[in-house]
């Protein structure tokens, strides 16, 4: 195939705001950026713009469908009137960069949205950002493989620390279908773990120090130098949280 640049250019036109303006206003620079031939540039300049819009809207629709399906509790924590603006800002800032694992597009999109809420979300959404992170951790633990991780912790174990007590808030949402409004912040450290060969998830509340130990394990930086750290390591071993490398 000879059209890598053409495909990249078309993909950006469909997913990255501002790219179309570059094509229209600075076609030569656009062609140089994607190493387009004159014919390829001509094809893109001649593209039916309403069909380009239709295709771009279809892509956005699929991305947001992934987010809504993967993050139902988060959605219920965000005021319905804010969804449209929030989604538009998210789509504008966060292009659909390919996730590392196949079949991981829904989780990848949910991860992107969770990161967006945490890093770029408007003021007043820290609760939703926490819930999004928690829902993503649950999905990642569900699909993570215990043995196929380059970390010491298995892919079925995910760690998170939160401003709010997300376990209580999430359980409340599952019971009542809505998230408690304006809860009191309560710092929470936890591990979400999928049981071996099961789809059941368990959430373990952790102390800040145990969390720090496991977090270092997760990043592959761990060499226990205290009795407490060795005890955390033994617990992780006993519970089957470690990969072979971790054991």
């Amino acid at each position, binding site marked *: 195939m000879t059209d890598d640049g053409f*495909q990249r250019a078309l993909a950006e036109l469909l997913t990255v705001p501002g790219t179309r303006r570059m094509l229209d206003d600075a076609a030569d620079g656009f062609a140089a950026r994607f190493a387009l031939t004159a014919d390829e540039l001509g094809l893109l300049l001649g593209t039916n713009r309403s069909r380009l819009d239709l295709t771009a809207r279809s*892509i956005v629709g699929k991305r947001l469908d992934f987010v809504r399906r993967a993050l139902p509790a988060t959605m219920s924590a965000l005021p319905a009137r804010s969804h449209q603006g929030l989604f538009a800002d998210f789509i504008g800032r966060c292009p659909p960069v*390919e996730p590392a694992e196949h079949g991981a597009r829904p989780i990848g999109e949910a991860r992107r949205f969770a990161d967006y809420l945490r890093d770029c979300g408007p003021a007043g959404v820290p609760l939703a950002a926490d819930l999004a992170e928690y829902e993503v951790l649950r999905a990642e633990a569900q699909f993570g493989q215990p043995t196929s991780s380059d970390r010491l912790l298995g892919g079925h174990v995910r760690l998170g620390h939160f401003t709010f007590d997300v376990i209580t808030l999430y359980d409340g949402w599952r019971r009542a279908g809505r998230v408690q409004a304006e809860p009191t912040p309560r710092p929470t450290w936890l591990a979400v773990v999928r049981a071996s060969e099961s789809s059941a998830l368990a959430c373990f509340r952790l102390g800040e120090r145990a969390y720090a130990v496991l977090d270092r394990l997760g990043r592959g930086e761990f060499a226990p130098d205290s009795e407490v750290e060795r005890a955390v390591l033994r617990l992780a071993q006993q519970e089957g949280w470690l990969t072979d490398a971790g054991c």
Partner: protein
Amino acid sequence: MIRAGQPWLGVGLGYRQDLHDAIFARSGSIDCLEVISEQYLAAAPAQRERLRVLRERFPVVPHGIELSIGTAGPLDLQYLDDLARLVVAMDAPWCSDHLSFTRAGDLAIGQLTPLVRTREHATAVAVKAAQVQRHVGVPFLLENITYYLDFPAELSEAEFITEVVEQADCGLLLDLTNVFVNSVNHHFDPVEFVAAIPLERVVQLHLAGGQWSGDTLVDTHSAPVPEQVWQLLDHVADRLSSLRCVILERDQEFPDEFDELLADLTRARQTFDLVRGG
């Protein structure tokens, strides 16, 4: 391309989780299912269990959406390894994906996007389709897509499809709704289109219904199969010598009455009962 002894799987549905209970409640009216390959490639235990339950009751075929065979450059061998494992685990008679690209550079656009139809591209895709078939070990089918963007090109769509599948010696998953939708949006005759592709390579059919968005007909998989697609089906039905399966696709706006979907299945089944002398 397709083994002579491969059985007729019948007329079935694209499996969607939203339809799970209804599918099992009316399983006697559904011959087979098609699942989205990527949902089971690196399956969590819940997905593996779901697949086991489906396979216990129905013949199931995998259908991919993210191979992105048209992306410039080599195929992803890890994806092929995962797909080969899934095919073995499912004992799948064939696997399929789309004649399109969904990834470019580091962007996963998730949209079946058309290729520029040159002979060079047809050959490049054919080489990769043959590679998929060898790697996975079962016949590989390529599906014609719906496209809204189109680029003036050396080959017509029918010529491009023919070049690819003939060179690759692979099968076709013919989506008749896509043919109809494209014929409306790009102003060609769908009957001439199907006459110009190698119908003897069609192993599976897709049927679905779409909706209008402004002046464009969109393949939304959200409505009953339109009359024009049934007419197209009647037109080709007795010329599909390799056909083994027909799948009705419905992805959204699921009807309150599941009978609406079953009615489309029944109509398709009647068509092929007539052709097959059943």
